[in-house]
């Protein structure tokens, strides 16, 4: 077992839909070692995206504890402002997030997007072009997001994440909007770079093949498996 990067204990979250309370996540516990990957699966609405949002502090849990990068966040713990600031700092420097699409600022070129993300994380933006080259889109660096294909945009999004040298990468259906061939290419690059740079990866997906590439598997539709 590698050193623990992330430890989740008794995590619960509910939403209110109309007059009804919907329990999306209930007493969820798991751990992720450094450099390990975890696939989150489950039907639509099973709480995959909610869990990713909880793991990067974009949403707050009702109960439970999240220990990440030597910081512990308890539900209802520290003052809201201090906790939000701590999550912001973590997201800025250690957590890379990739969505299904719209990961880039449309007003900036691919290179400028990567530079922006690197600068926010406090990394040297000079390497931004290299990251694009490593993802095979170096020649598209000056193009804008609307001038490249969906697969190229997702590669640029991955370049942004790797340029910030994250400890943990959260990917929410990163190939969901791509065709099979492009999705395979992006998946290959994703696992390759994740393995090479040793960051943790949590991947929410419907794609069983993609999920199979991960070391761990968490099906939110069958929490008894946890």
């Amino acid at each position: 077992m590698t050193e623990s990067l992330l430890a989740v204990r008794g995590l619960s979250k509910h939403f209110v839909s109309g007059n009804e309370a919907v329990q999306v996540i209930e007493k969820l516990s798991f751990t992720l070692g450094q450099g390990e990957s975890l696939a989150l699966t489950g039907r639509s609405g099973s709480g995959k995206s909610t869990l990713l949002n909880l793991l990067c502090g974009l949403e707050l849990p009702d109960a439970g504890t999240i220990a990440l990068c030597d910081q512990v966040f308890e539900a209802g713990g520290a003052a809201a402002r201090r906790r939000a600031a701590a999550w912001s700092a973590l997201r800025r420097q250690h957590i890379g997030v990739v969505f299904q699409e719209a990961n880039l600022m449309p007003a900036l070129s691919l290179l400028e997007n990567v530079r922006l993300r690197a600068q926010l994380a406090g990394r040297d933006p000079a390497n931004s072009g290299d990251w694009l080259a490593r993802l095979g889109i170096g020649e598209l660096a000056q193009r804008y997001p609307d001038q490249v294909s969906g697969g190229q945009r997702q590669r640029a999004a991955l370049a942004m994440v790797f340029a910030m040298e994250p400890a943990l990468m959260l990917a929410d259906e990163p190939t969901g909007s791509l065709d099979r061939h492009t999705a395979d290419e992006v998946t290959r690059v994703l696992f390759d770079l994740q393995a090479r740079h040793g960051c943790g990866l949590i991947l929410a997906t419907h794609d069983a093949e993609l999920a199979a590439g991960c070391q761990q598997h968490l099906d939110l539709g069958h929490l008894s498996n946890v």
Partner: protein
Amino acid sequence: MKGFLPLFLPFFIPRALFSHYRRHPLQLVALAIMILLATMLWTGVSHLTSQARASLNQSERAVAERKQVVRDDGQALVVEDFVSLRLAGVCVMPWLEVTPETGNRLVGIDPLAAHCFGDGVETGAFQALDQPLDGKPFVDIHSAAGISARESRLFLLVPEIAQATDLPSNYHLKIFSTSPDTGELGDSFLLNLEALGVLVLLITALLLRSVYLLGLAQRRDSFALLHRFGVSPGQVQRWLVLEILVLALVCVVPGVWLGRWLAAGLGSGFGQALDGLFDIPLYAGQGQGWLTPVLVMLAVVVIACLGDLLLLRFRERLSLSVLARAGLAMVLLTAGLVIAWLAPSLPWVFIAVALVFAGAGWLTPTAVTHLAHWRAGRSKASLARWRYRELAVLVRRLTLPLVALQFALAMVLAVQALVTTFEDTFDRWLAQRLEAAYYIEVPAGADSDKAADWLVSQQASAPGLQWHRVIRGHAQLPDAGSQQVDVFAITPVGSLIRGWTLLEAADRPWETLGAGEGIMINEQLARRENIGVGDSVQLRLGDQPKAMPVLGVYPDYGRPVGEVLVNGETLPETFDIRFESLSVTPGEPGITHITDALQQIWGVEALSMRDNGTIRELATGVFDQTFALTRAMTLLTLILAASALLMMGWVFFSTRAWYFRLLVVWGLPQREVAGQLLRLALLLTGGIAVLALPLGIWLTWVLVHRINPLAFGWSLPMAVYPAFWLELGILSLAIGLSIAALMRRQLGKPAVAPVSASALTGGER
């Protein structure tokens, strides 16, 4: 399916099209409100202008100089004079002015006698006679005669056609005027109000267009779907035309009603001021009718909203690249500036204004976008670079409301400067013309030399006494086709006149005038005949032509005619004196001491005297009210433009909410993201305010230095008011702050990501 489609089309297309507004009811409400407010504002301005024009026309007719009968011996008229004139067959109407012990002046009239004026009774003051005399300000002469009066005076008016030869001996004709004429100053203001109306129409059309196009952009997918179902673009367009026509009709009618209501509410104050000035009910409550504003606004709404659809083919042919458009805008702008500078007539100035506004409207978004890209390129910090790039996107996407705001700000700047300049100038001019506290007419046949000698003798013993004698008449300019000019001869050239503002002056002008070694002319004459200070002017005063140097040019905003100011001592014996008066500030002895003495010297029972302070108060009342109206209208336009930008800004920012959310995902604290949002919004609105400034200053210059001289022969001083710039700047920043505040609330909610790749089109950057 294809076979059934034609049967269902009449129901299916409108349901499909209008389903957009079921999903976005607020957008429909916003569009309806925008049409309503735009109609209200424009109708208000145009209704008010036509009301003001009708009122001033009425006032001009009412106070136009009429003729009165006076006694040769200068004695006040009495009832016996009326009787003897009527017995002699002269059509005279008694006009008894009564100042009660308390209350305002009343005028007693004999309605039966008024009818001998024929057509004259249809206009102005005489119109009141067709109404029951309700006691204010016109009363039956019998009632007026019965009032316990502080002062009363009988005038006997005769029709315009009356000749001196019709009168019995011992009587002669004299001009009768109830009060001073607002003259050209009023016309000038109406012209500017009309120009303001056109600008308001332009701005509201831009705002309407921006709101409608926003909705249209959101409906493109629905149109594409309908097209796939076999509905032709032509059918969709017809339904869209019908849709906007119905919406326009529903909103325009109440908008016109509201506009008229607004104008009536604001205009009643104007009416009161006008009535106060002329002592008679002059306010013409009726402006324009209903049909014209309804049709105009319907046309404006349809053209503003669907102009592109109607001219689609031309638009495709005329579509220009950004560079070509910027080039064309520069050409329009330059042409407008040059034409405005050199314009020989008013229509050219209006064409120039249209060109400059078109050029500025096209150039501004392009220029700001380029500036933003340039700043982005120079920014080392990626976040700043992103901010400037976002600014460029915002400017491009919010072009119409931004340009509308720029125009509105420029218009408000210009109108504010104009109004303030008008106020200052008018006050100053009125103050200099009414410098003396009292104005006393020299009765016909009276010896004004004796009065002058007496006043000179009093000078030493009456501290504070200031006076001069004014002789009025005509002169010819032999060098200008024997053009007739008014002569304004003053003796002595003393302190009451030396404070006059001069537009141009020689060295020590008043001293030289006092020595009788030159003349001064009014601005109208100087402009019309291209005469400047130092030029020698041939002047025929009486039978003597005389060349005299021009010592100064003075502004005379109320009079269109040429006027020459001379030292009264230089008038030849043969000069035909039309009118004489004394301007007196009595000082310590008081006016009664002077009037008693003058009555004794001239052997008359009463003097025709005017209290200049009251006149000044009444005259400024009309203009103050008009200025307040103009300010209110321009501010309403600005508020409309600001609201539109606020609404559009909010809607558009909402479509960018995801990208601000991305910054939060990337670890930027909410507070910092809100800060970025604030800077962006302030850059946007503050930048527009800065760009509106030169346009506003230029428009001010056009109004005061081009339109007024070309229309009326005189110009106003060009003044700028930086404090007002600051106010508008703060207002613009407040709009930016509001957008940022609304958006910040939006940031607190979960943002929706653009749902498909098609959302990432070129318009996004």
